[in-house]
């Protein structure tokens, strides 16, 4: 279970999180929606310790990342997670197979080289890729990179997977393939997931619960069906993707 309470963060004068309270149950796929700059990626990065909150707590399996200080305990905490980056963030200098088993080499240094290769092939098969083990990331398409990144995130069989905008920049068919993969991984591996997205089609397909974050605060949390018919005007405007409504976004920076 991931239990975040009163998470606050600001960068200089810019307040990003104003006290986020979120509880993600074990085995649940929790989708966090919100506009650009609403703080959803900052919250996700706080969960894995890439961003240190100014106050509040994030407890995962009785470990509070906000209280951990030494590098070794933080590394140990992070190994509970797999993380899918928005731009895949594959290591350019390594092959696809080396990318997939990168984390595993540190976690299980006792494994033989041939076994690493077999694990990489298995994990790539799980995300629907075959025969690309020796390619470099620069030789892959955007969708393939995302899938390799997903294979890397699950290679060490983590209990938690965090997805940062998994469908952004992909065509509608590839987006749906990624959605199916997220559902499939949940079914096969039973992972607990937080998915940050502003792709509502994806959110409704994969979520057990959806939360909307706006200006650093959670506006509403609920089942996807509830979010579709919500009375909260802000959530409704976002879910329906309307420019008119209580959420005012600047059309031009000088307006």
């Amino acid at each position: 279970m991931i239990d975040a309470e009163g998470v606050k963060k600001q960068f200089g004068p810019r307040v990003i999180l104003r006290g986020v309270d979120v509880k993600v149950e074990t085995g649940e796929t929790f989708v966090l929606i919100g506009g650009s700059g609403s703080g959803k990626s900052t919250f996700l990065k706080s969960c894995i310790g890439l961003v240190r909150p100014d106050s509040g707590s994030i407890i995962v399996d009785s470990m509070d990342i906000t209280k951990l200080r030494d590098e070794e305990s933080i590394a140990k905490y992070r190994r509970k997670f797999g993380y899918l980056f928005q731009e895949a963030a594959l290591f350019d200098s390594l092959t696809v197979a080396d990318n997939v088993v990168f984390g595993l080499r540190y976690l299980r240094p006792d494994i033989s080289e041939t076994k690493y290769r077999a694990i990489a092939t298995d994990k790539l098969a799980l995300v629907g890729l075959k025969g690309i083990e020796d390619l470099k990331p620069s030789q892959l398409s955007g969708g393939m990179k995302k899938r390799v990144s997903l294979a890397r995130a699950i290679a060490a069989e983590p209990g938690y997977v965090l997805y940062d905008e998994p469908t952004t920049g992909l065509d509608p068919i590839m987006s749906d393939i990624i959605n199916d993969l997220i559902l499939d991984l949940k079914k096969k591996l039973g992972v607990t997931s937080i998915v940050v997205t502003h792709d509502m089609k994806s959110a409704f397909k994969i979520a057990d619960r959806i939360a909307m974050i706006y200006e650093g605060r959670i506006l509403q949390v609920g089942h996807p069906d509830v979010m579709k018919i919500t009375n909260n005007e802000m959530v409704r405007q976002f879910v329906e993707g309307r420019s008119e409504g209580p959420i005012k976004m600047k059309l031009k920076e000088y307006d």
Partner: protein
Amino acid sequence: MSEAATTTAESPSLLEAMGGRALNVAESMGQFTMLVRSSLFWAIRAPIEWRQTVTQMLHIGVQSAPVSILTSLFTGMVLALETGSSFINLFNEPVFTGTIVSFAITKELGPVMTAVVVSGRAGAAIAAELGTMKVTEQIDALYTLGTDPVRYLVIPRVIAFLIVLPILSIFSDFAGVFGGGLVGYLKLGIPPNIYWHEVFDHLDTEQFFHGLVKTFFFAFCISFISCFKGIFTRGGAEGVGRATTEAVVYSMVSVLVADYFITAILVAIGIT
């Protein structure tokens, strides 16, 4: 009039600008100290990434060797030409050209020129590579995979520099002294046996060690500054460009500043 007034009101005062700059410098120094501290921690606590280290040694060596040898060769040549022709004017013959060239190259110019060339080649490449990794979230990816970037990226590069820079410096020493001999023979008419006699008659291991010891400090400065600038890159492609330029400039300046202080210490303890 009102526009000018608005601009004045919005732009920070001189005191604010100076304060902001001082805070940035203090923050950078703190981050740099933390990077060195973290490197020491991981160097002691975790096994060294030898595969990465060897790869980096090859990169730094292959990238920098031709340029540093060529630079040193011509430095030795010009040094021989200058001293030889000056001594011909003063004493009617180019006496001690081999001694002066070998002293200047092995104690000072070989290590410094090599360090400057390596800053421009390998230092820039490291800052650009790590900077790109930073802006494309690859550094964050390392953290999420339970690997500290300092352990995986910084320590191998620092060790590679500490091994490769002294070797490159020795090659440069040979190239520089050889270049001096070439000009001495072809332009000044110094017979090779006289030139090499002048070189080895006065040059001993202490002078050689004097130059070599400097290269370890230069390697430390260049590798840490380049890694620091890369890992703390901010602001996309523009930020990578800025980090690369700053890495080269700061590395070169730190080499020249460190050179004086190390020389002063070596002279003080009698290694001349």
